[in-house]
């Protein structure tokens, strides 16, 4: 029988298929690991209601557990409490930036709540002279920006 910490470590290899540098733990999709008798129960939560990556993330968890020789497990999906971008870890935010995606503003930022975007820094050159092109980017969770300094378009993980 493995410990929760060991299972957590092996689930680190399960990534978001749309942003393959960030693990489901960094993303805040992994909500809990419980050992019940000889069984492992993993709880996950979707980012958006219609997130098409959810089934792949679930399959990723099942594969990782099987590969580690764990046979007795259950992957449970919960809707509540609703996922928020605030659950993306500091490590996750750093990896997003490295990957070229501006991390989301914190939801406590009053400007984000009012729908006004706080200054978004370009992940390429760091300039905050950027412009929102579309609130809907390449996937449901991202908005499309362009940097006016280096002209590069980039995705921003939007506040949710």
């Amino acid at each position, binding site marked *: 029988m493995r410990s929760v910490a060991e299972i957590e470590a092996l689930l680190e290899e399960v990534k978001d298929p749309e942003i393959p540098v960030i693990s489901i733990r960094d993303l805040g999709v992994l909500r809990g690991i419980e050992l019940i008798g000889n069984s492992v129960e993993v709880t996950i939560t979707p980012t958006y*209601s*219609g997130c098409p990556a959810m089934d792949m993330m679930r399959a990723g968890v099942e594969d990782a557990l099987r590969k580690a020789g764990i046979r007795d497990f259950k992957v449970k999906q919960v*809707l509540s409490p*609703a996922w928020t971008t605030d659950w993306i870890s500091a490590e996750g935010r750093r990896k997003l930036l490295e990957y070229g995606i501006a991390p989301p503003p914190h939801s406590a930022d009053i400007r984000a709540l009012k729908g006004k975007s706080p200054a978004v820094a370009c992940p390429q050159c760091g300039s905050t002279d950027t412009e929102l*092109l579309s609130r*809907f980017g*390449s996937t449901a969770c991202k908005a*499309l920006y362009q940097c006016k300094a280096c002209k590069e378009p980039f995705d921003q993980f939007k506040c949710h």
Partner: protein
Amino acid sequence: MTREEALFRAVLRMGDNNLVLGHRLSEWCGHGPVLEEDIAQTNIALDLIGQTRNLLTYAGELEGKGRSEDDLAYLRGEREYLNVQLVELPKADYAFTIARSFLYDAFHLPLQQALTESRDEHLKAIAGKAVKEVTYHLRHSSEWLIRFGDGTEESHRRAQEAVDELWRYTGELFVPDEAEELLAKDGTLPKLTDLKAEWSATVDRVLNEATLKRPADGWMAGGGKKGVHTEHLGPMLAEMQILQRTFPGVEW
């Protein structure tokens, strides 16, 4: 009607509204007027269909006959769909699509906000996610309606025509059926008259900013909530359901 039957019907209706509108929006995929809008409508459609999946799965559990989300979506006929007629109208031009989305989003947001305080835990959880998504939808449709209304002569004309044409389909949103009436009494669903007040305020604010006129209330269409639809829903379902109808039970 027992409370369980009423809840099944009401949850099914919410799912149907989202599914049908989501399908209509998905028809813009590859046909959007600009790339960003193509992507925006596809994303919004995905949100709506995602919410539908949660709702229809729940409806299936409430019914207790073992029907899955897919069974409910793909194997019900037109008369068994309980959505309002507003969402089934063909997508037409972009002004019409935007105006329809706006009129629905302005209803959908206060509905989801109210459901985050429903006494039904399951609806509450679904709404907790949906409310954030629908906030974006309303912002998107409002901004585009304002852009069209307060835009060129041509865009203004098309936006006003769309609002005028759609107006008679908005009444049905706020006329409760037996199930909705029953569930509003015990705090499972909000009262539709309360939603109407919020809807009306949003509509006035945005139409005003868009320099569009609010049409007078006249004859209102209805029947969708009872399964009586316009001639447009049947062909839409035929296209949506063709695979399951042709190869029953197919999976991939």
